[in-house]
């Protein structure tokens, strides 16, 4: 099933190395290696973007994707009712590379992404309307905090105290003083005990003590500087802000990486689980896969998350902080239960906003509003430790637990929910986490060293971002790695 890689002008010029290949192949009669200029490992946005940029410059590329589909953490669940996005969905107003790529490949974008019904809060098991929160007896926050909805508490503190002006300020040496636990900083800023608890309940990280403030500041800066924050969007949490200013891929996010792969043609090889990257034995890079196939190139780009990259043997081995980063970079969790609603609208029955933000074992119960206005689904999202705990249950038991919990919190939902899909990013083959999440001190330790080329191996992937966030950061990282390789092949 090994398709030949595309032969480009450039490969033809390199007849000498092709002859070398034949000699090598003679020693390995059972497995001839495929040869290209660059091997890209990983067919998500970062790997595909790197491959397209390299191919644009006339290099031959091979993309090895371990899964049976491309896209990585862009994953439209075509098999689940309502085709929800398991992963990336929002295209920010400033996602220039994503928008360019969509335009170039004729993939249609539409305004407005992931619009959800507003939240009702379930705090201490009591349902609280947003407008009741400020004066509610369970609101134990203090002073101005009282006016902030629990779901927006983190952005409330982050936006008013963010010291950064430029996109890459977070990488400057003086930024190291912010590479501390978010919780410590919030306490310094005078956050009340209960507000801190609310931040913790909604955090996409293990908890406020185990996430670096610095990485969150980078995101907040990027979002603030070009988010199109307007009068309409202030006071809303970051999901709500994004839904008002973002775009989406028509037909689902997966359509964009699929179009990118189609553009690359048979250079993209699916079901190729890489086991070894060998830069010791020959003059270039030899990449071996679990199925026994072998690929050779002058350079390789790892566009894998560090979870899967940990399982790849690299010769010579990575060393120092780079090795530590690959091995120990924490990944944030995100586990979801998708639900189809039946019967009369429960939110009309109890007269409260349809989505729920809870301080219980679930984070969010969001009601996505279909682009046709339909409101017949819910998606339950558990992040951080809440996700890890839910994942301890067998997948079938998760749905049951979630339904029981929602029915308990909100009796009007009773008997109206049916589980249509369960998805856990840490448990999903080939990915092992929804996004990188620096622990305190790790930006300083890892951010610079971990993206340095290791012999002929370059690093891409959202975790190597410099300026961007979300899908755009994956594209940015692929572009950087491609340029690094181009400089060396010039």
């Amino acid at each position, binding site marked *: 099933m090994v398709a030949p890689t595309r032969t480009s002008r450039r490969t033809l010029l390199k007849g000498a190395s092709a002859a070398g290949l034949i000699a090598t192949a003679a020693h390995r009669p059972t497995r001839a290696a495929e040869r290209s200029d660059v091997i890209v490992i990983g067919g998500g946005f970062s790997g595909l973007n790197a491959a397209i940029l390299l191919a644009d410059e006339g290099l031959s590329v091979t993309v090895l994707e371990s899964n049976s589909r491309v896209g990585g953490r862009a994953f439209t669940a075509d098999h689940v009712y309502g085709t929800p996005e398991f992963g990336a969905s929002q295209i920010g107003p400033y996602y220039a590379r994503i928008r360019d790529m969509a335009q170039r490949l004729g993939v249609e974008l539409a305004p407005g992404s992931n619009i959800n019904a507003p939240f009702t809060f379930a705090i201490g098991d009591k349902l609280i309307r947003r407008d009741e929160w400020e004066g509610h007896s369970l609101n134990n926050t203090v002073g101005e905090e009282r006016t902030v909805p629990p779901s927006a508490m983190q952005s409330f503190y982050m936006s008013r105290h963010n010291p950064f002006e430029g996109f890459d300020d977070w990488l400057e040496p003086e930024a190291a003083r912010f590479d501390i636990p978010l919780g410590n900083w919030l306490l310094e800023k005078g956050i009340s005990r209960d507000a801190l608890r609310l931040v913790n309940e909604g955090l996409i990280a293990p908890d406020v003590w185990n996430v670096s403030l610095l990485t969150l500041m980078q995101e907040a800066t990027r979002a603030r500087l070009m988010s199109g924050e307007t009068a309409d969007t202030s006071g809303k949490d970051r999901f709500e802000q994004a839904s008002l200013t973002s775009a989406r891929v028509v037909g689902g996010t997966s359509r964009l990486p699929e179009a990118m792969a189609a553009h690359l043609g048979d250079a993209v090889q699916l079901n190729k689980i890489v086991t070894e990257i060998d830069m010791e034995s020959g003059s270039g890079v030899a990449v071996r896969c679990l199925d026994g196939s072998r690929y050779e190139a002058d350079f390789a780009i790892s566009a894998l998350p560090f979870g899967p990259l940990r*399982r790849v043997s690299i010769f010579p081995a990575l060393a120092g902080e780079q090795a530590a980063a690959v091995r120990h970079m924490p990944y944030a969790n995100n586990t979801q239960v998708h639900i189809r609603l039946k019967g009369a609208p429960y939110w009309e029955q109890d007269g409260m906003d349809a989505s729920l933000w809870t301080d219980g074992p679930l984070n969010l119960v969001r009601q996505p509003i279909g682009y046709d206005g339909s409101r017949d689904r819910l998606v339950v999202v558990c992040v951080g430790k809440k996700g890890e705990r839910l994942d301890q249950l067998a997948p079938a*038991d998760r749905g049951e637990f979630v339904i029981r919990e929602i029915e308990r919190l909100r009796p009007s939902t009773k008997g109206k929910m049916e589980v249509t899909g369960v998805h856990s990013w840490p*448990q999903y083959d080939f990915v092992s986490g929804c996004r990188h999440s620096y622990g305190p001190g790790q930006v300083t330790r890892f951010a610079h060293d971990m993206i340095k080329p290791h012999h002929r191996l370059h690093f891409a992937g959202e975790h190597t971002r410099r300026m961007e966030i979300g899908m755009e950061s994956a594209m940015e990282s692929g572009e950087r790695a491609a340029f690094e390789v181009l400089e060396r092949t010039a």
Partner: protein
Amino acid sequence: MTKKLISPTLSRRSFTGALGGTAALPLLGRKAFAYESADVIIIGAGLAGLNAALNLEMEGYSVIVLEAQNYIGGRTRTYDLPVGPTNAGGQTIGPYYARIRDVASRLGVPLISNPPRVSMGNYVNGQLVSAADWATSDANKLAEAEKSVLPSALEFFYLSRTNPLPDVESWIEPDQQHLDVSISEYLRSVGASEEALRLIGVTINVFDLSVGSALAYLRDIKRLQWGIATNANEETRSTYGASSDDGFEFNEVEGGTQRLCEAMAAALNGPVHLNTPVRMIDLSDDGVEVRTNDGSRYAGKFAISAVPFSALRNIDVTPRFQGRQSDAIKYSSHGNTLRVFMEFSSPFWDDDIGDPALYTDTAIERVFARTTEEGEVFALDCWVNGNAAYRLDQMPEEYVSAFVVDKLARIRPSTKGKVNVMQVHSWAKHSASGACRHAFDAGQVSQWADVMGTPHHRLHIAGEQTRSIENGMEAAAESGERAAFEIMERMV
């Protein structure tokens, strides 16, 4: 789901004692959920947690055991397959597993002797070579001094004969910390060839040689050496050095190891709470409150964490762990093992090299042959560990079965069409903890080992990662016993 307000497991002792600690805890709006109390809340119903529970109950203290998964036994797990009970986790009971042997005999759980082993052939460097022909084979690229050692025995060959630890306990001592380097660095320092390193990488049960700590591994090997006082036949012993064939008593639990854990759970005064992941542990000066994902609360004077660190790191513990102990809980590494249990239709080994079992330097690593007491081979057990297991885990499970069968047919054509997969079990995928065992990375023994098991306020830490000298199942039992004794001392 309304549960009782006060557990029937409450003993006289805790009933009089616990009130002071629990009366102050508010019920808030959660009246609909269980609110139980006992002297000690134990998190995790594996061997460590169950042994702690039994020890505490024997002394008259009451316990509540909470288990996240839907079965008892943690990393002992037995499948009932067509060929009979099959252990995916803990199995062999070493001659010196005093606690395991003691609890089995107390509870009347019968042990059977470990069946005899059969010879293990090799598929190395693209060639199928019998155990008998290995020393002189072309496929044998080992250095001269290593050539006569079977690939499956190289690990023990090097780590036992060169083991510099004077005794098991000394692994924690400052003067041994220079051994807290990677296993590959250690092996090179004692003269192992690069080919030997490559072949040892197959059998060793850590992430990989360049990551795992030599010191931690030497501790385990020392315990084995000490426990069985082995000296003869080192070169030909397989990974764990000795078997019943050498005259030592190795056993297994009749019906599977999980039966022992179930018997331990049944011997407790109250039921183990299954499907109950813990969400929070609140520690105060006079008590502990444990809150589970379903909203229930459990109050105790003390608590024991008997879960792997990979699970403990997901529980909100207040006050938080600090310093090196916190780092150990957050960042400890874990090994993985993938098992593929297979049946076969005819003795294929008679058609090639004659050895039923096979060591390979391929992605499927080793295929063991399971035998009856009489030595008759009745099933196969593909055993992949460390990094290689994580790689196979990336494939959906049904692909893993097909992959192993295909690969085996390619490297050993006599198996073609004769092998069928009954069960796949990956510890990383099929357990709440996502791991088969804790494994120190190089450097981490020095950084963490002395503080990992230190009590944190009223929370005591058990689990095999906190073992001091034992290994295997005995290490879990040892850790549970220690935690129970620590608490008893504080309660008198």
